[in-house]
Structure formats: C-alpha cells, structure tokens
C-alpha cells in the first residue's frame, strides 16, 4: 500500500473518531446538566474540561468572554474557524477519504461524504440551534455507521490495520484526556461534602461506559473503580488498555512480531506500553499521582504516533537511498490543511 494512502486512512479514522468523541462529550454534558441539582450551579466546571480535552482553552478564550454551555457548544460544533470543531474534523476525515476513495468501499465514502454534506447544510445549523441533542445523535449515528461499514466492507489487509491504528490511537488519547479532567477532583463519595458524583457520572457517560460500568461494578460509583475501569480494564472497548491491545494486534498484523533485534520502533514502543498497562495496579497509579501518570501515557502515545509516521510513511532509512533530485516540497502524508491548490490547477481537455 502507498505510504500516503496508509497515512490518509489512518487520519480519516482518527478524525471520524475525534468528531464522535466530541459529539458524545457535548451530548452527555448537556444531558447531565439537565437533571443536575445544586452541584451544577456553576456550569463552567462541566464545560471547561471539555475545552481541556480538545486543547482549545486558549483559542476559546480569545473568542468568548465566559465559559457557558451555549458558547462552548457553538464553538465546538459548527464553527468553521475552529480547526477542531466537529465540522472541521468531519471535513478533514472526508478530505482524507477523498484522497483514498479508490482504496475504500463506496459505502464507506458515501457515509463520510453524507455526514459532511449534512454538517454543511442549513438543516444542520438549524438542528443545532433548536434540538442540539438530535444534532449530536446524528453525528454519533454516522460515526457508528462508519465503523460498521468499515468493519463489514474493509478487507483485513493493510487498510484495515491502519484504520484500526488511527481509530484506537485517537480513542486512547481522548480517554486519557477525559480521565485527566477528573484527576484534580476528590475521590471521596457522598455524603462527604467534597464528593462530586455528577462529575464522575459525566466521565462514565462521556465514555459510553455508564451501563457497562454499572453491570461490572458492584460498588456503584466509586471514583477509583471508575478510573481503573476506564484505564486498565481490557474488556471495555473505550478503555485505554483495550485500545492499546487493539493497536498492538493491528501492528503485529502489519509488521509481524519479529525477533528482538530487528523489531520496528512502533512494535517496541507499543509492546512495552501494553505490558506496563497490563501489570500496573490502581494503587501504584494513585501513588504516582493520576495526573502525572496520564501525562506519561500521553507522551508515550505521541511517541507511538510519531513512530508510525517515521516507519510507514516517511521512512527515513529508505529516503537516503533515493537519488538526489530536488527536495520534495510537498509533505508525503495525509491531508490536514489546504495546500496551495493553485499548483494543482490545469485546464482540462
């Protein structure tokens, strides 16, 4: 498979997953606040963390004076000038899909293209104004469709593995960021006045883990159990441990487990992280400090993402063999922002 194609499939999956996570985050927060009592009096404590997970606090502060649900939703859903909005995530997913249209099924392409047409329509803006929940659900359903179609139409070859890598890396990243939004709040439970049960419920709902966790845990809403479930449990498909395992499986299918001496960088990095997560206990995590621990996970994820790019797309080791012509002025990888499209214009016969 072409390197650029692999990178585009990887990013297509990442951007779709990103749009899905954002929609769920906005939907679950809004839902939760509807029937919250006193704890929700200061709504910025619920909306602020969402901006943290997307890393947009600064950009947001430049546009809006205060953190309010209305404004955060506006900022993250359909704003064309926010590169991380749902709209722009879907556009990026769609542009990447378009560059690899010949490699993905028509059904998959139509699903992404359909979602992007919807988001750009006046209908979407009106729906987001009047029935926000329906708007988010529409995006969520499209993302589930995307995954379902991908799963049932993608051959289990490189396309599938790169798609899985993108999806799971994005999900692992978002799960850690979500958990991190709760790392500063109390692990106490009611009736302790410090307890914030609503915030912990929000964490579960934002990860689609509410029902799964209820069924799993006898100790209903114990914060430490919730964190352990989302971080270390390898049965729930949005937990960090599950995502790492899925990535590892995809990666082994791509490069084989190989012998230690010629092991590729991503295999080594991911294998080590998988072992770390498998053998660490919750007590050790808390002893180290939840925020510090998550910080480390995030930097490992960044290294892994970079090593994918170096190994499969940019391959510095082979580049040296290529005859010295002129240095490539265009990047080799996926679509992220508009390049100088004038360069690609020529008249058509």
């Amino acid at each position: 498979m072409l390197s650029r194609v692999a990178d585009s499939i990887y990013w297509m999956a990442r951007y779709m997953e990103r749009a899905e996570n954002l929609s769920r985050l906005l939907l679950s927060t809004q839902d939760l606040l509807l029937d919250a009592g006193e704890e929700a009096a200061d709504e910025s404590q619920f909306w602020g963390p969402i901006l943290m997970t997307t890393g947009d606090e600064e950009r947001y502060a430049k546009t809006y004076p205060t953190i309010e649900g209305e404004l955060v939703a506006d900022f993250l859903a359909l704003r064309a000038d926010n590169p991380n909005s749902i709209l722009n995530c879907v556009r990026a997913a769609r542009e990447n899909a378009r560059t690899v249209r010949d490699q993905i099924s028509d059904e998959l392409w139509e699903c992404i293209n359909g979602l992007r047409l919807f988001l750009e329509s006046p209908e979407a803006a009106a729906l987001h104004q009047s029935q926000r929940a329906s708007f988010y659900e529409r995006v969520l359903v499209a993302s589930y469709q995307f995954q379902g179609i991908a799963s049932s139409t993608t051959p289990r070859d490189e396309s599938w593995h790169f798609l899985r890598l993108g999806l799971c890396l994005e999900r692992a990243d978002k799960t850690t960021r979500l958990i991190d939004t709760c790392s500063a709040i109390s692990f106490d439970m009611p009736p302790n006045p410090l307890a914030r049960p609503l915030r912990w419920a929000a964490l579960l709902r934002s990860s689609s883990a509410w029902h799964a966790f209820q069924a799993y845990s006898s100790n209903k809403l114990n914060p430490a159990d919730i964190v352990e479930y989302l971080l270390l449990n390898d049965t729930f498909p949005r937990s960090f441990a599950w995502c790492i395992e899925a990535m590892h499986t995809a990666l082994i299918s791509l490069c084989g487990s190989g012998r230690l001496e010629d092991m590729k960088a991503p295999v080594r990095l991911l294998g080590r992280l998988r072992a770390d997560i498998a053998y660490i206990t919750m007590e050790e995590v808390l002893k180290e400090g939840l925020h510090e621990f998550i910080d480390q996970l995030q930097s490992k994820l960044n290294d892994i993402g970079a090593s994918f790019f170096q190994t499969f797309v940019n391959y510095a080791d082979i580049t040296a063999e290529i005859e010295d012509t002129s240095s490539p002025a265009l990047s080799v990888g996926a679509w992220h922002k508009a390049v100088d499209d004038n360069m690609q214009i020529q008249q058509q016969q």
Partner: protein
Amino acid sequence: MSSLFNDYQPGSFFDEMFSTPDAAREHYAGIMGSIGTLTPPEYAARQRTADAVFLRQGVTFTVYGDDQGTERIFPFDLMPRIIPHKEWERVESGLIQRITALNMFLDDVYHGQKIINDGIVPRELVESASHFRPEFMGVKVPHGIYIHICGTDLVRDGKGDYYVLEDNARCPSGASYMLENRNAMKRTFPGLLQSLPVRPVDAYGSMLRETLAHLAPPSVIDPNIVVLTPGVFNSAYFEHCYLAKQMGVPIVEGRDLVLKNDRIFMRTTKGLKQVHVIYRRIDDDFLDPLVFRKDSLLGVPGLVKAYQSGHVALANSIGTGVADDKAVYALVPKMIKYYLDQDPILPNVPTYLGVDPKECEYILANLPNLVVKAVNESGGYGMLMGPHSTKEEQEKFAERIRANPRNYIAQPVLQLSRHPVFQGDHFEGRHIDLRPYVLYGDRIHVVPGGLTRVALKKGSLVVNSSQGGGSKDTWVLWDDQE
C-alpha cells in the same frame, strides 16, 4: 404522444429525438414507450433522485475561479441520447481511421518528418505548436504508439451530418461521467436497459487496463500500473480516482513516486515498489521539473529520463499535443490522405488558420459570424462566439489575432444538433455534442457511445462543464429495428 412532450418544439434545428413536433425518430420508440409515458411530475421526481445520488456519491468536479475548491455535480439529464447501429458503425470506423493517422503523424514528426519534407504540413506550424516537444525528437516510444487514449469531439450540423470539432490527444477527460451516467440510468429506470438493445459501456475500465498493460516493458509479465493525478484539488480528481478504481490500480501523486537507477518507484508501507506504466493525468509541462516547468510540484523529478530509457511507459506519450493543436487539426484530412491514402470518413469543420495571411484577413473581416478559438486552450476557455459577442469583445479578439495570428483559428458557426433536455417541468431543445473515447493498445477499441455533453444555457453552443454544460447517457443500439 405523451404529455411529457406535449409542448416540445424541435424548432428549426436538427433534433436528435424528433423529426417533427409530433413524431419521434424510429430509434427513440423504445424510450417513448417507457420513460415517455411518465407524467412531468413523475419524471421530475426521478431526475431529483438521480441528482441526489450524484451529490451523495461525490460525483463532482471542482470549479476554479469560484470559491476555493467549490465542488459541483456535473449536471446530468436523464433523457438518453440514442444513436442507431448503422450511424454508429460509420462514426466508429471514422474514429479508428483518425487515431491511426494521428499516431502515424506523431511518429513521423518525432522521427523522419516525411510529411513535412513532402510539403504537406508546414514545418513552422509544427515547430511553433506550443505542445511540440523537441526534447523527444528521435526518442523511441513503446510500440510507436503516442496517443493511447483519445477523446475526439463530434458535432452534427443542421442536416444531421457528423463533423469532427477537435481531437483531445493529451489527457482527455470525461470517461468517468460516461460510466456514472449509465449507472444512474440503471438505478433510476431499473429494467429499462435490459429490455432495450443498448450496448454496454462498463468494459471501459478493463479495456483501459489492457491498453496500458500493453505498453509495459516486454520483460515484465505482470506490470504495476498507476494513475498519476495532480491531486485532490484538481477539477477532475473524481475521474482519476474513479478510473483507478475501475482498473483496480493505485492512484498516485507525484510525491508518491521517486526515481532510482532510471526506474520509477512508489513509496509503499513496505518500502519502494517499481512502477511500469503510468496513466498520467498531468500535462507535459508539469510532469518533470528537471525537463519542463521547474516550479512544478506535481510531477516526478527524473520521470522523463526513466521514460526515455524505457523502464517506465507513459500514456499518453509526451508531445502528443502537437497533434491536437487546433491549427494542425485543420490538416488532419490531409494526413489521412497522406498516410492511409483514404478519404476522411468523418469530415472536419471548415477551418480558417490565423497563420495563413489570406485566411487571417477573412477571419478579421467576418468575426461576427465565426467561432474563434485560441489553438492551445481547452475546456471552452479563450473562445469568441461571434454571433453572441459584443463589438468590444470582437475588437479585443481582433487585436489579439493581429498580435499573434498563429495562435488563432476560426470556424463557421455550426447549427449544432439539439436534444430534448428537462427544464424544471418540461422539455426544451438544447445543443449537444459527443465525445467518444478511443483506446489504442494492441488494437483499437472505440467505446460504444461516449459522453454526450449538453449546453444547458438556452441557445448556448458551449458544452464544457466549466462553462455551464451538462451531460447525458449515450446509447448505441445493438441493431436497428427495420
């Protein structure tokens, strides 16, 4: 007479469908008995469904000079254009004759130049053609074929006679719309195509692949073929992708390819993989910054060297544009006579050359009655439609022609044939042309039909997608009912 066509007026033109306001032509009988029986609202609903499918599938082209990267669907009119079997046979043999002569001409131009030395084609005309590539003089190309994929534009005049309007011998586009239009017809009127003797077009993908595979270096048994696109922002990107998918070959951009030992490789997740045949959809100018435009980021440095050394093949070859130069076009009938000793089966539209002083004078004196075209523009750009132009436009063109007569040709305005086209709730006649696709591999294939383009604006004679044109499915019948 169905209500769909109750008020239809063929007018004083050659109408493809109706010989008189009340009588559809024989070969449209099947359509009249099926689609023709729908009521206008029923028909409009089908048309809307087809449009929605095109948009959802992203069957689009990009409009330049509009908002950045605006994608539009290529407007599609459901009522098919039908060509009877006998008529098509003639067109087909005319196209085969023409591509044969054009290829012989290119081989001659880049090798012995007999036709120039014999005084049939003026040397200045060839050497001043902007797409002539002196770098390719004497370079051997696989099997001596230069044009592997040709799109020749045909029109019919007021009497219904076919003429060649121009040849597109560099990177003709539109084949994907031909294929998608047929799919849209199948979806919108399931069963209809089975019940009528319509020749299928869906073999185009495999025919194209065969044509390309034929070019591979002889030592390669299973060649790696790729489609080279300028990228996702190019107006025809949809088509590049579509054709790659039809052929089951990768679509690559210049940055995916590298040169090593005079060979071209693509960068894959498992390292470098050699490429043997490139169906390039990038103009000569952008192919290789080491040889042509230095600022091109679209091409592959060293590609020309690899091509010249025979390790990789290109379709179409480099320098084919000298054959579709609009001034050289005027001489194609002479080429056919010279190389094949035959009369052209499909005549040219009479053409006046700016480069000929006498003809230039005629052009300048008759601007209001002529179509003037710049010789190396395409896509409907750089044109003056005499009868529809203002005095100022004519003066501006006259100035340009005087400044650079070689750059202009003129033709009389043909009364192009018309076809009923659905406009909101009824049919109106619109001018059409036809672009058939000719493939030249181990033998010559002509796809039955091609892309019928429609000038959607009332009275307009310009069919190009960039200028508000649309298209129709084109049906060639297996046999004609007597």
